[in-house]
């Protein structure tokens, strides 16, 4: 697990959740009451209808952040959770950076943009806006370099992450990962109290 500069730990969690009202509130409430710190959060519809994908980056003491996936999995609306921190993943963040750029500075800024392979998506008389995607350090570095020109606005998304290639089943310890198989349930009769799966 990645240790951050201030001695806390970071984990990246990927979840597939029901696309229903209140799901984000359930997850946010869980994080709040268990004292989990969200460093970043990205949500969007997934490739499966009715399901959204969420990527969390969670920060905190090691024993606390290890609990996150297990606690998330208790929520009925969370269909799958994978703590992918220690797995082979690719991940990206995206930022829009609006920087002060008059005619005199524009050339220097565009040169930086080139080196970072950044798209310039809007140019005004006094400013320009660029789009950068990549790892956090790359984005942090660009922001630092642009600071001296005058940052007008920095808008960053959370991290989105996915496993490289295929996930081989059985690689995980089985403890914190949801069984994706569906729960089937026969309704009990009026007299019985049976009906467990």
């Amino acid at each position, binding site marked *: 697990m990645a240790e951050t500069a201030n001695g806390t730990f970071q984990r990246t969690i990927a979840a597939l959740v029901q696309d229903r009202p209140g799901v984000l509130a359930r997850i946010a*409430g869980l994080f709040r009451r268990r004292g989990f710190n969200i460093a970043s959060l990205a949500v969007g519809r997934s490739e499966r209808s009715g399901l959204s994908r969420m990527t969390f980056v969670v920060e905190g003491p090691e024993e606390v952040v290890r609990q996150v996936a297990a606690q998330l999995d208790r929520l009925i609306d969370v269909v799958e959770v994978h703590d992918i921190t220690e797995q082979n993943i690719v991940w990206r963040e995206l930022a829009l950076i609006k920087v002060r750029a008059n005619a005199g500075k524009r050339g220097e800024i565009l040169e930086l943009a080139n080196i970072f392979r950044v798209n310039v998506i809007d140019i005004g008389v006094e400013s320009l806006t660029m789009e950068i995607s990549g790892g956090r350090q790359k984005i942090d570095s660009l922001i630092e370099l642009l600071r001296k020109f005058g940052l007008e606005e920095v808008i960053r998304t959370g991290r989105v992450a996915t496993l490289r290639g295929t996930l081989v089943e059985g690689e995980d310890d089985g403890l914190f990962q949801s069984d994706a198989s569906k729960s089937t349930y026969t309704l009990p009769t009026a007299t019985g109290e049976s009906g467990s*799966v």
Partner: protein
Amino acid sequence: MLKHLTGSEIVCEALIKEGVSVVFGIPGGAILPLYGVLSKYPALRHILTRHEQGAAHAADGYARSTGTVGVAFATSGPGATNLVTGLATAMMDSVPMVAITGQVGRAAIGTDAFQEADITGATMPVTKHNYLVMRADDLGRTVHEAFHIARTGRPGPVLIDIPKDVFIEMGEYDPDESIDLPGYSVPGMADEAQIDAAAALINQAERPVILAGHGVVLSRSFDELRELAEKAQIPVVTTLLGISSFPEDHVLSTGFPGMHGMAYASLAIDQADLIINFGSRFDDRIVGDAQRFSTGSKKIHVDIDPAEINKTIHVEAPVVGNIKDVFGQLLPKVKKTTHVEWLQHVEHLKAEHPSLRIPESDRLMGQHVVKALSDVTKGDAIITTGVGQHQMWAAQHYQFKNANSWLSSGGAGTMGYEVPSAIGAQVGNPDKLVWSICGDGGFQMTMMELATVVENRLPIKYAIMNNNHLGMITQWQSFFYDGDYQAETYTGNPDFVKLAEAYGIKGIRVTSQDELESAIREANAHEGPVVVDFVIEKVDDLYPMIPVGQSIEELIEDPN
């Protein structure tokens, strides 16, 4: 077969299909359409409580004592918010419950309408799951999902919020529809590798202790627990909520540990080389300082909830599964053995640290009352309690004969639980003797339910441990606040005998040790409900005690 019914009818038919025969509740505007169809469903007996908290605790007591799902009804707004303490109590102790609340009409939701409360928002942290159902067509499936979620896996309360016009709307109900919960799986058998690891630790252990928690009670694994303990000759410590999961007159029974548990139980855990935890979440009242908890032992933790593993205590051998199934898997792999030296040592601990000495006094002490209750009822009653000194005396001195006969608010520590939970227990067990052991503080939080007791002719016996004090508060103020007593004395207590009589209930007052047995016998013999006002001494010293956040090294056994 598809049925075309009103929302209210769908709810009732789905409840009946789930086997529900009793609901506890109070009507109000938004839930009136549901009450409007109850007369068509005589299979649903409605018990009218005097407060929604009472309805929730009664449903909880019914659920714990019968092993079925308890059901509570309440209306929107304050009716629903009054359930919250009851839901939180059930959530903390993993009790299966379904609460159905009325909500304002769909068009009014979000407008701060009269008696509107966002109850699904409010109860997210205190329910296993909750629903706001916006179409009558969804009601049947939702009720069946709610029961499935409440009773399976780690049980817990589920709330269904239903807008008034959804009760009235016509909808389709397919009783044979199967439910589909892709985000919910129910652990059954554990992984064989986990079982093998656990069995190996058990077979190697020289000083093993079983810690039996509420999970043993909830999974009804009493026989299996006993079989395992006897086969490998392992002493059994029960947690506060594990009490009555193992016969207390059994030679291997080793009490309950922790803050006010038996010293010998805490010492056995501290000196063990293996703790086998079945369905306890290593609560802070047992563990104290986690860094110093039983440092010499390896730990096996069997739990149906994977999130409990390594939550507070690091364990060498986690076993995730249904405890009953896990016993079935473990038993053949655990070798028949004896631990003669260790068992002799545990017997020695019991002798050296008796922990249950009743202070010598001519006056009436709380311990005398519980001891007499235990003796006269021969440990055969269902006991409910609230929280505080009376709860600890009950846990310490009542010798439970029957499995699952102890209902107490453990995790939440809810004062007032004792009065309505006894209602649920008596309704669910009409032929059993139910004694509710109450504090005078807790009793006054929910005593309005005496009206419910009378109305339903429930022969519950209430034992008020009346010392005109919040006893546990006085103890903490004495220990931790230099004896600076604040807001702990009740100078305005009513005459509880007259209060009982005002409800038409038999009232008895007991002020001395001599009257104890005859009063308890008189209460037992009386056909209806009884309130016994036991006027006991105020004491600041309930022992043994391990102060909060400390360990066995700080154990105060009995300084007297």
